[in-house]
């Protein structure tokens, strides 16, 4: 990154010192997809909580892998297999350092956060949960952190307990403390809410759970791309995130687990790579992390994810966070000033996401009209229907920000919202 005066502050003298050295215009040039027009207007991509765009560095890493190193991993004695294995395991090391995990074996490659949560439910969950046990989640979870637990509870005769949220969209911690008890087998909580942007006090949540000897799974899908995550400092037992939400490919994600827990968990899927020996009488499972990675892995995905994490590291996650906070603060102020808007999710600690309604106009109509202006936002329930029910809306419009978004794009969003109001005037 350059330390020359950045174009960002040149455009906007009100920008704070937080972005000193963060040149968003230069960053944007790393993302080829952003330089296009949609319906004749410059693309304004504000759907980063759904998925992010990929920098050239990630695209090149994938092309390079297939152009030079492709072979199956952990198998062949030949040169290409060795190189592919080295590249795949190198990506694991990058993910390990990204989360500050103690050991690379604690990084399991999965398809994404959803598979990570299902893996825990199907292994740790099925192994340790019995009838009468309880699993605690929160009222702001994504469906992927609700349904796997419901399935497990139904199978085992266990009970799902839900920590309520207040009108700002913050967890009510006193209620959480009341729910924690001798029956609790696991706490599964989102680090950052995809529908509301709330940053949950996961440190405190883990601390309280551990006082009762209860392990905690943190869904970091929305947090990992926009804030520093240190699993050891957090003392999380499991932490999951998705590659495609952090500027990497789809179909790859990371599940972190403490060795002590992963070691005693049964395998997830059976197949190649997860075994050390197979006979028809007895199969011995491979050691960590391979025990949880049956079959030929998503090598291209892991390598692309590694490149994405290196890209994020190079910009600096703290710089990214400061930049996104600035854009979010500006957007919050500007969108709230559009007559008729109501923000859904006004937590004191939030990041990345601006959910709103523009009554009485339905979010779906907002989305269509903004799309005609080249602006991509998400409309709907954001895979968090209980959150919509809590706030009494069928759906919201959601602008979510990434490391390449600018205040100018927020201005475009506001102009688009005024156009929506014109159409419906």
């Amino acid at each position, binding site marked *: 990154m350059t330390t020359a005066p950045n174009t960002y502050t040149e455009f906007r003298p009100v920008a704070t010192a937080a972005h000193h050295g963060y040149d968003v215009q230069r960053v944007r040039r790393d993302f080829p997809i952003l330089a296009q027009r949609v319906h004749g207007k410059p693309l304004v991509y504000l759907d980063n909580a759904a998925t992010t765009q990929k920098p050239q560095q990630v695209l090149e890493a994938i092309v390079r892998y297939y152009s030079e190193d492709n072979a199956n991993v952990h198998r062949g004695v030949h040169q290409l297999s060795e190189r592919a294995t080295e590249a795949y395991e190198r990506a694991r090391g990058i993910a390990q350092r990204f989360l500050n995990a103690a050991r690379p074996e604690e990084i399991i490659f999965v398809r994404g956060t959803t598979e990570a949560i299902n893996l825990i439910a199907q292994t740790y969950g099925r192994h340790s949960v019995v009838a009468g046990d309880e699993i605690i989640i929160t009222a702001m979870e994504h469906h992927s952190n609700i349904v796997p637990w419901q399935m497990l509870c139904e199978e085992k005769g266990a009970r799902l307990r839900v920590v309520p949220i207040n009108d700002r969209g913050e967890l009510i911690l006193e209620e959480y403390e009341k729910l924690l008890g001798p029956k609790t087998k696991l706490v599964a909580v989102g680090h950052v809410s995809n529908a509301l942007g709330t940053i949950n006090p996961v440190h405190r949540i883990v601390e309280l759970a551990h006082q009762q000897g209860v392990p905690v799974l943190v869904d970091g899908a929305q947090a990992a791309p926009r804030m520093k995550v240190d699993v050891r400092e957090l003392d999380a037992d499991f932490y999951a995130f998705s590659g495609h939400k952090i500027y990497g490919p789809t179909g790859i994600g990371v599940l972190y687990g403490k060795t002590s827990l992963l070691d005693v968990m049964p395998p997830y899927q059976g197949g190649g790579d997860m075994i050390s020996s197979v006979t028809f009488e007895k199969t011995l499972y491979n050691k960590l992390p391979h025990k949880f990675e049956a079959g030929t892995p998503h090598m291209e995905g892991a390598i692309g994810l590694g490149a994405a994490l290196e890209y994020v590291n190079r910009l600096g996650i703290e710089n990214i966070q400061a930049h996104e906070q600035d854009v979010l603060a500006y957007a919050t102020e500007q969108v709230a000033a559009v007559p008729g808007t109501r923000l859904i999710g006004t937590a004191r600690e939030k990041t990345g996401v601006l959910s709103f309604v523009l009554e009485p106009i339905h979010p779906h109509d907002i989305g269509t009209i903004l799309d005609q202006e080249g602006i991509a936002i998400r409309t709907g329930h954001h895979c968090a229907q209980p959150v919509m029910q809590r706030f009494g809306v069928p*759906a919201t419009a959601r602008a979510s920000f990434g490391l390449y978004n600018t205040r100018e794009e927020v201005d475009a969003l506001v102009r688009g919202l005024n156009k929506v109001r014109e159409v419906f005037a």
Partner: protein
Amino acid sequence: MADLRDLYQEVILEHSKQPRNYFELGDANHQAEGYNPLCGDHFTVYLKMDGEKIQDVSFQGSGCAISKASASMMTQSVKGKTLVEAEKIFEQFHKLVTGAEHNGTQEELGKLAVFSGVSEFPVRVKCATLAWHTLHAALEGKQEAISTE
């Protein structure tokens, strides 16, 4: 904006703001629920059938401008029609909004022709047809809520 005005015609906006036949029909003998899980649109269609004839029809629920206006104008167009006639209108309406047929249907559809702009917005076809699918389910006497997915 030309494209948008094709979709959000004045008549459609007007119906979305002031939907017709928007109440629960007290003496309905058929009803069905329709739901689009992707956007949360949810409507109930009430029918009072007299043999093969739709004597009265109404709806209630929530949804976007397109789905609500479509439901409102549907109730106007099928009231007094026979089951067969109503199904025929739906068939033509479906062709109109999916762009399957550009000529010949508009006259028969009458006011419903204002929905022709939907064909330029494929993701909105489900919005325009939700009430019609629900009507269809009500006519068939289906008990379970139907879904667009």
